[in-house]
């Protein structure tokens, strides 16, 4: 099988409403990749965006928005399959069980509803098998890092490329779902998988933009991903209507699949030395530790950039703590284990079901690549410039901090005169001389 390069999405769900943006510096300062600059009084994304939506969270004016593609009605005569993230189960309050929600989706006209929480349990066993294999290697890549959060993946590819080989290289649940949901439906209905449109329902902008760019394994341009918030109300209506009709079972997973979307969900049943961390800054802090070689005693690290995990994802509607509470109740109800059979997964594993064709590669900024000597020269210029700056990190120049401003000046995308404090100092000196 040819090895394909994992084209990490460059897509961004962020849109800045110029009528609401007043050019304050908050989003620019919050961005973990320093992708934002304020120019002519407006915030703009200029660099590599990893779709974490931190900028959206900090904007006090609602000018920076995370936009999900809209829901579009199903067309007659087409084949539709839907696969909701298990986070959906936490979004309707205690009155709805997972099965009610899946029945609601079916009633919306989807030919097949694929319970993603079950796929997560299958994946979870495969992950355990992979960790076991890794243990036997002479130089295990511990800690392995979870492949679930696409923002973590993009952050690693951009800021921590040495850790790319720590990301679990199995096909992820989202890839498996994309492949299997269509295959199952087409086998049953005697059509080609290519004729089936798959809709992912996700709490996650990064997942959505990844799919929009067809960069997912086996995704086709018939596949779409939309935010939970774009379809939530419709599902509620249908689920309410269906609540009486309990005869069909569409939900198969145990508590592990149901709890998958909360921080710790991936390690809950995992037989390995593992740790779960959530939140953008905490995740970055842990990536730094791994890069320093500090966590080698750990076998598996679950990282989620959203606080509390995907139940705190940007496209959710319920409050993350209420969602967490509800999920914990559901987990108790369905039992804290995987309902999938181990031998079944072992067989799939040995058949190569989880093999991914993708090779993950660093995400580059797109600015011209300099040689080592040119870079050394650039760093020296930056260092000289920093000494001339006040170091108060105000951001008034339009760059996120003094160091980045110095970089921008050296790279020719900002002018030293843009430093407001230097201007002010100059003015005060002139005033004193008068």
């Amino acid at each position, binding site marked *: 099988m040819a090895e394909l390069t994992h084209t990490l999405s460059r897509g961004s769900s962020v849109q800045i409403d110029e009528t609401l943006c007043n050019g304050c510096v908050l989003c620019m300062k919050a961005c973990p990749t320093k992708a934002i600059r304020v120019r002519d009084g407006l915030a703009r994304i200029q660099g590599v965006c990893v779709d974490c939506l931190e900028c959206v969270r900090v904007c006090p004016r609602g000018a920076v928005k995370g936009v999900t593609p809209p829901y579009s009605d199903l067309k007659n005569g087409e084949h539709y399959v839907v696969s909701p993230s298990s986070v959906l189960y936490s979004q309707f309050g205690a009155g709805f069980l997972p099965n009610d929600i899946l029945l609601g989706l079916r009633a919306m006209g989807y030919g097949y509803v694929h319970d993603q929480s079950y796929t997560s349990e299958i994946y979870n066993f495969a992950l355990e098998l992979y960790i076991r294999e890794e243990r036997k290697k002479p130089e295990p890549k511990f800690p392995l890092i979870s492949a679930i959060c696409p923002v973590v993946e993009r952050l690693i590819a951009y800021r921590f*490329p*040495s850790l*790319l080989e720590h990301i679990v290289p199995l096909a992820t649940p989202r890839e498996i779902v994309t492949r299997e949901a269509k295959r199952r439906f087409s086998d049953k209905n005697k059509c080609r998988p290519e004729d089936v449109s798959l809709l992912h329902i996700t709490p996650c902008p990064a997942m959505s933009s990844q799919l929009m760019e067809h960069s997912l394994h086996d995704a086709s341009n018939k596949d779409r991903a939309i935010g939970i918030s774009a379809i939530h109300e419709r599902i509620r209506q249908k689920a309410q209507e269906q609540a009486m009709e309990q005869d069909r079972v569409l939900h198969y997973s145990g508590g592990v699949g149901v709890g998958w979307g909360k921080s710790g969900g991936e390690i809950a049943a995992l037989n390995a030395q593992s740790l779960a961390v959530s939140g953008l800054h905490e995740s970055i802090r842990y990536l*730094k530790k791994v*890069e*320093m*070689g*500090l966590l080698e005693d750990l076998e598996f690290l679950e990282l989620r950039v959203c606080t509390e995990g995907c139940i705190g994802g940007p496209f959710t509607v319920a409050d993350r703590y209420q969602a967490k509470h509800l999920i914990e109740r559901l987990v108790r109800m369905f039992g804290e284990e995987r309902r999938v059979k181990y031998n079944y997964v072992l067989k799939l594993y040995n058949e190569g079901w989880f093999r991914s064709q993708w090779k993950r590669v*660093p995400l580059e900024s797109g600015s011209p*690549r*300099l*040689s*080592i*000597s040119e*870079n*050394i*020269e*650039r*760093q*020296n210029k930056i*260092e000289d410039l920093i000494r001339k700056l006040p170091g108060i990190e105000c951001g008034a120049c339009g760059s996120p901090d003094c160091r980045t401003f110095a970089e921008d000046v050296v790279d020719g995308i900002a002018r030293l005169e843009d430093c407001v404090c230097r201007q002010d100092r100059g003015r005060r000196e002139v005033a004193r001389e008068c």
Partner: protein
Amino acid sequence: MPDLERRFTIRANDFVNAGEVSLEIQSILKHIGFNPALIRRISVCAYESEMNVVMHGGDGEALLKVSPNSVTLVFTDQGKGIKDIELAFKPGYSTANLKHREMGFGAGMGLPNIKESADSIEIHSEEGHGTTLNIGFELEGDFG
């Protein structure tokens, strides 16, 4: 004359800021664009050396020298020095105290790891007169 030179201060027993110098060094190397595997090797050495100065050494400094074909780290401290250098490099050997161990240090793997990760090391130490550790990395074919 090296092409880039930076100095950093390290304080004895300052566990709050411990690790910051290595992070800074790592960030500079990333900006210069060395290959990730090399940066990782250098970071491991930087971190272990910085921690040794904080824990066992005394006040000291780190010096980073970068040229297109080599990277050098020099850690100097005015601490208590090392009595038996050969012993100090033995895997598992550590004089870390209880407080250090409670914080998760003192596995005695720092110096052995540095030796393994670096292309060359040179150490000068005299009991009562501090320690200088010079760690070199060759870049031929290692960058890009």
